[in-house]
């Protein structure tokens, strides 16, 4: 038994990322994208009987799913918080399908939104995980930047990956962003020299290899394969999913260079009965350039250690031989909290629905999406396809 093809994404919505929230709250933005995604799916609010969400830094609280149900006046039969950092949105897709297949509900709203920093008076940022606070933070290993720099440095030492190769990821994804009217950084293409001449933040990662936190939100609707056929959009079926975890602090990862993407992607491709070479595009989570290189290796698009050369030798733009993060990736689109991780799911669906606009990948019928949370700590791979 598997959930392969049992459910489909039938509606999407995504806010244009903004540097500042301009007075808006995560809950308010969630209500907007909920309304727009429900309409995109050709449904009404009363059709929603499942709710999945993540968390929001801007209004961090326990009991978040109930807070959202209350704000939207929903009465879900199935609801939960998927707390997998940047992998939360991909994690929602298969959980929604599984809940539908199990008969717990029929149509699930998956929704996230966030502001850059705390915008609600009196609220605080959530605390660091306790082990990180005791054994990492005193040495300056705080938040994501240095963790991914440690990965990049080790990848360079083990495999000879170069700064130019890492920069190429940012350069090609920027080409995609220049065809995405909602990207934060989509007005001008960049060169490898631009990336390498940008400020060094945590050696070997430069400013243009690092995501920019912002405000925004996104939502998608998952429903059963039968119901999906009655909607206005081309249903995008969940063909495969796989998940993996095992560490919180990067220091405690079994390897810095072989990630948990490997088991997650293997599960997803196995469920779907396809291989990496069958994919028409990839939307891998990109908090940093090195994240894309490690993900492509571990998902099986190239051999371990050859990711740097792979991105150098392939055109990652929407019209290239290996379309990758066709919305620009978070590096150029922006990272509106967990909606940054949802952007990869949304773009995968958008391409498969044929709504890619100027950046539409021609004849795309199947693609790979990966969500990554923490410091390569949470991985969720999806294979999405249309019939």
């Amino acid at each position, binding site marked *: 038994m598997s959930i392969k093809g049992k459910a489909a994404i039938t509606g999407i919505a995504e806010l244009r990322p903004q540097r500042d929230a301009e007075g808006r709250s995560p809950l308010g933005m969630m209500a907007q994208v909920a309304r727009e995604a429900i309409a995109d799916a050709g449904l009404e609010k009363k059709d929603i009987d499942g709710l999945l969400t993540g968390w929001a830094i801007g209004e961090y609280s326990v009991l978040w799913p109930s807070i959202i149900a209350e704000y939207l006046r929903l009465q879900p039969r199935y609801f939960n918080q998927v707390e997998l950092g940047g992998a939360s949105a991909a994690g929602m897709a298969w959980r929604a399908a599984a809940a539908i297949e199990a008969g717990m509900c029929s149509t699930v709203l998956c929704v996230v939104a966030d502001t850059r920093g705390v915008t609600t008076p009196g609220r605080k940022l959530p605390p660091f995980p306790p082990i990180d606070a*005791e054994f990492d933070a005193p*040495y*300056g290993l*705080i938040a994501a930047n240095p963790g991914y720099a440690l990965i990049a*440095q080790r990848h360079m030492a083990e495999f000879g990956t170069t700064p130019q190769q890492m920069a190429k990821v940012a350069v090609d994804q920027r080409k995609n962003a220049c065809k995405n009217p909602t990207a934060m950084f989509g007005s001008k293409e960049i060169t490898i020299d631009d990336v390498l001449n940008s400020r060094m933040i*945590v050696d070997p990662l430069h400013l243009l290899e690092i995501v920019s936190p912002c405000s925004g939100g996104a939502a998608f609707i998952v429903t059963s394969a039968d119901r999906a056929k009655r909607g206005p959009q081309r249903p995008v079926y969940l063909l495969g999913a796989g998940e993996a975890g095992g560490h919180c602090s990067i220091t*405690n990862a079994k390897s*810095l260079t072989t990630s948990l993407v490997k088991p997650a992607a293997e599960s997803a491709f196995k469920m779907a009965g396809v291989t990496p070479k069958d994919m028409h595009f990839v939307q891998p989570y990109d908090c940093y350039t090195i994240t894309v290189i490690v993900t492509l290796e571990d998902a099986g698009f190239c051999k371990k250690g050859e990711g740097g050369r792979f991105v150098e030798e392939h055109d990652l733009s929407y019209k290239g031989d290996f379309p990758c993060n066709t919305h620009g990736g978070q590096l150029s689109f922006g990272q509106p909290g967990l909606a940054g991780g949802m952007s990869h799911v949304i773009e995968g669906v958008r391409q498969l629905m044929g709504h890619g606009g100027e950046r539409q990948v021609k004849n795309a019928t199947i693609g790979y999406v990966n969500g990554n949370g923490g410091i390569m700590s949470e991985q969720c791979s999806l294979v999405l396809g249309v019939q």
Partner: protein
Amino acid sequence: MAQYKKPLPQPTPVSRPFWDAAKRHELQIQHCNKCGAQVFYPREMCPECLAPGLAWVKVSGKGTVYSYTIAQAPTHHSFAEDVPYVIAIVELAEGPHVTTNITGCTPNEVKVGMPVIAAFEDVTPEITLVKFRPA
């Protein structure tokens, strides 16, 4: 001594022996007498076999740099005066990986695989951090 402004560990009943040893300039980790695992960070149960009763053992303090980054921008505002500084993962000779800083050399001298040895830094009267320097 100027007031120390960077994040400090808050020892717990479980981790207290580690920090007490550091204060004596000794590196101690835990050992599982059931499966033989060497355990860091401090836990109540062995993460490999889940057995209770981990024993504290003094270790060599020797290791190698598994990976590192030179922070050219502070990773937290409290580190602003330290830039550039090296954040590293050191693989102890006994196996476990620890988060640390490399001191006693310029950041550009640090390399993956470089042999290092524990260098204890008394940052407050209560807390000693376990940093490493070239061996």
